[in-house]
């Protein structure tokens, strides 16, 4: 367990310069995520078009892990279909919680989040934005989605 596994350069960079940060006009959903442990709040703005994430932005004040995770997430899901974004949510969830998660290589930059698993107290920081995304995708879905696993 090493600090530099947690605070990788990608994480520090996205914390310092979060991408897609700020409000979003004509959003289809504005969803607030809340981490009761630390009191951090995250607002996610999502615009869907043709069942794709046409645009996504976030706001809020959080720790480096939650800010970087949200920033990386917005980059990763922009342009993806709803189903693809939900699939990514599941894979990140596994990456953060399941020691046997294997597809780290296929995750690109998001693989930087794999160090969080070694710091159980911080998993919720990294997963907050993803849960918020899942509920935003659900709330904008024309039909009910198959149950999204969370914990």
């Amino acid at each position, binding site marked *: *367990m090493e*600090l530099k596994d*947690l*605070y990788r350069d990608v994480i*520090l960079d996205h*914390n*310092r310069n979060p991408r897609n940060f700020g409000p979003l006009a004509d959003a289809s959903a504005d969803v607030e995520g809340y981490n009761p*442990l*630390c*009191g*951090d*709040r995250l607002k996610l703005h999502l615009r869907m078009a043709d069942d794709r994430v046409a645009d996504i932005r976030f706001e809020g*004040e*959080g*720790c*480096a*892990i939650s*800010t970087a995770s949200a920033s990386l997430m917005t980059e990763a899901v922009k342009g993806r279909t709803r189903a693809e974004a939900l699939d990514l949510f599941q894979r990140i969830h596994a990456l953060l919680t399941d020691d046997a998660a294997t597809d780290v290589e296929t995750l690109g930059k998001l693989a930087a989040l794999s160090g969080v698993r070694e*710091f159980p*107290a*911080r998993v919720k*920081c990294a997963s907050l934005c993803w849960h918020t995304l899942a509920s935003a995708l659900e709330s904008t879905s024309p039909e009910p989605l198959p149950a999204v696993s969370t914990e």
Partner: protein
Amino acid sequence: MSETTGALRVPTRHFDVEAVRREFPILGRSVHGRPLVYLDNGASSQSPAAVIAAVEDYMSTHHANIHRGVHTLSQEATALYEEARERIRRFVNAASRSEIVLLRGTTEAINLIAQSYARPMLRPGDEVLITHLEHHANIVPWQMVCAQTGATLVVAPIDERGEVHAEAVEALMGPRTRILACAHVSNALGTVLPVERLVASARSRGIVTVVDGAQAVAHCGVDVRALGCDFYAFSGHKMYGPTGIGALYGREELLERMPPWQGGGDMILRVSFSGTTYAALPGKFEAGTPNISGAVGLGAAIAFLDSMDLDAARSHEEALRLHAEDTLGAIAGLRVIGTARRKAGLVSFVVDGVHPHDIGTILDQEGVAIRTGHHCAMPVMDHFKVPATARASFAFYNTFAEIDRLAAAVEHARRMFL
């Protein structure tokens, strides 16, 4: 006793911190390969060997249920439990053991007052007065009882230092104010409240006073009769005792008038299907089998405190806090949150560009344990417009060298995020 000259920052009486540390087994452990620096005493303090031994001795030689058996073990357990109550009584200088109700801790004590004292008494339009710096345990039970009764919760302000001004609280004491509930010491800011004056002002207006002593009892010295409050609540785990045990001091006259809060065994004199006669104080408020080993441990913690030179210990804690404010204050971009003129042994702070949670993780890797977050005082965070703070809280077993390690680790965290 050694006299020191010059430096204000040195305890004026000799305090042998290394000798004290040897009494606390956990202080010998390491975390992530570094000697533990435990600076989260405001959340829970550590226990001396005497407390651990007392609990072990109780469990291995005396354990049985109390107040229920004629057999030897039950009598021994009962005697030890009541002895702990007597120690607590003496520690806070209550007039009688009937005034000491043993409970789970501060939270349970305040809920008991809210439900058993306040709920039957409050009428729509009555007011419960608290302050802006309360722990959630001294906010939510009042919100609940206000919702149940139609009473209103009134909140006295704090200033930019995190101080509570007695005049500002007094200005809010009106004809409908029934209860004043305030902290003795703030857990988020360290502010020591002017409780003596607040209690006196409230009493002169016929307002019942509730003091949340969770952060004060181990560090300030509490005399409930000198203070004159009606209720005083505290937790064992913040005064070197076990978790799950604490006490409520209540003035006998009020406790007598209050209905029991929970029903069950131990709180009755006689039960039949046509009615029940409740036990005398304090048993009336102690339904069910209590935390006997916890009470024994808390009694041992008080005996430990009684054996110490508490004035010297408190000067040491004060010196630690001043040293921490100096060394942390020298770090670029660090801001101390809570700069009251009367402050207990803790320092809350934020660092530009580094979220408190990241500070907490980085410090932990260096063996330094602090608390980060909102400290169950979200309104305080809102007041200072910060989402969270990092908080180092001290006990008499902490050292100046530990504070230096804290400051070095915070500086390391700051550099990582440059």
